[in-house]
């Protein structure tokens, strides 16, 4: 345990400084995430694709960047939505839009996965025929392949996640400027 020896060599002030460095990294990451939420208006500006329902466009483990545009949804938009009582958000394409007269924010939306045979009515809660703007977490504006595979592995094998955090933590604590 070389790094413990290295920590042992440091005095109190150095230890404190390294601890603050670690705290800086954690809070910076949080600030970046919150700034992205503020800039995009989406409650979750970056998501990982978890199913194959949008293949061959998006595969499991791809990363998507979301935005919450001011304009109402249009057909062809790929949206991320979360219906009541569902844990995991879904990434699918808008195929029908009905915009009510007199209130442009009163909208009914139907979606479908590019790789699915039928529309999404069977995925909505029983009795729900349409999505509304309140269900939409964002519209897909950017795409980055493969990278999300890391988070899928981390979710499937929590030990891997803890090991990674431990190793990175050690790096930060022992590295000198």
């Amino acid at each position, binding site marked *: 345990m070389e790094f413990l020896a290295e920590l042992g060599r440091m005095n109190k002030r150095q230890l404190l400084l390294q601890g603050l460095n670690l705290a800086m990294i954690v809070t910076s990451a949080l600030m970046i995430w919150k700034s992205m939420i503020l800039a995009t208006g989406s409650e979750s500006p970056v998501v990982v694709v978890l199913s194959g329902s949008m293949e061959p466009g998006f595969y499991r483990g791809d990363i998507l960047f979301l935005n919450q545009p001011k304009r109402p949804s249009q057909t062809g938009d*790929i949206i991320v939505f979360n219906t009541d009582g569902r844990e995991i958000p879904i990434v699918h394409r808008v*195929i029908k839009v009905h915009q*009510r*007269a007199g209130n442009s924010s009163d909208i009914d939306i139907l979606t479908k996965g590019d790789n699915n045979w039928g529309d999404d009515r069977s995925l909505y809660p029983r009795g729900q025929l349409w999505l509304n703007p309140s269900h939409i977490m964002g519209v897909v504006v950017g*795409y980055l392949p493969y990278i999300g595979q890391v988070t899928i592995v981390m979710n499937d094998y929590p030990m891997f996640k803890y090991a990674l955090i431990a190793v990175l933590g050690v790096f930060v604590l022992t590295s000198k400027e």
Partner: protein
Amino acid sequence: MTHLHRLNSLATFTGTVLAVVCLAVTATDFVHSGEPLVTCEHVSTEGLQKEFGHDRAYVVLNLTADLRSEFVWNTKQLFVFVNVLFETPTNAASEMVAWSSIVKDKEHAVMTLPALRPQYPYAITDQGFNLRGRHFNITVAWNVMPKVGALSKRVRTFAGFRMPADYDNR
């Protein structure tokens, strides 16, 4: 320990370089402007039915498209779709996808579909019974899906037609 630190710097540097390359690649998408040829016209209406809760129209369209010029090195696929749009007293705007196709390469980007019918599960439906005699518009749009970077959508609008004045259950 120094080996691990080297590995760490190497990984960080690789990540930074890849990120910059990805941004540069998607930046080239914004410079490209294709000159696709698209036409779409109404051929006939094969039926207008009153179903449980709504009207449903069976419109036949004639679509020709040459989208080869939309393909650049960063284009993974085009999601091409045809919309029928209409306005009713209760709905300010209704937009229905009637047909779609995924085009993965230039060889399949030339389309000639003289009798394009609504394709399952798409259907031209109203929320209610307002389609009789209703004017509708047609748009052809395609979502350009990249290998990495920004998605984009382009739309062409075409002259529409009028739905039959009465129900037609053939």
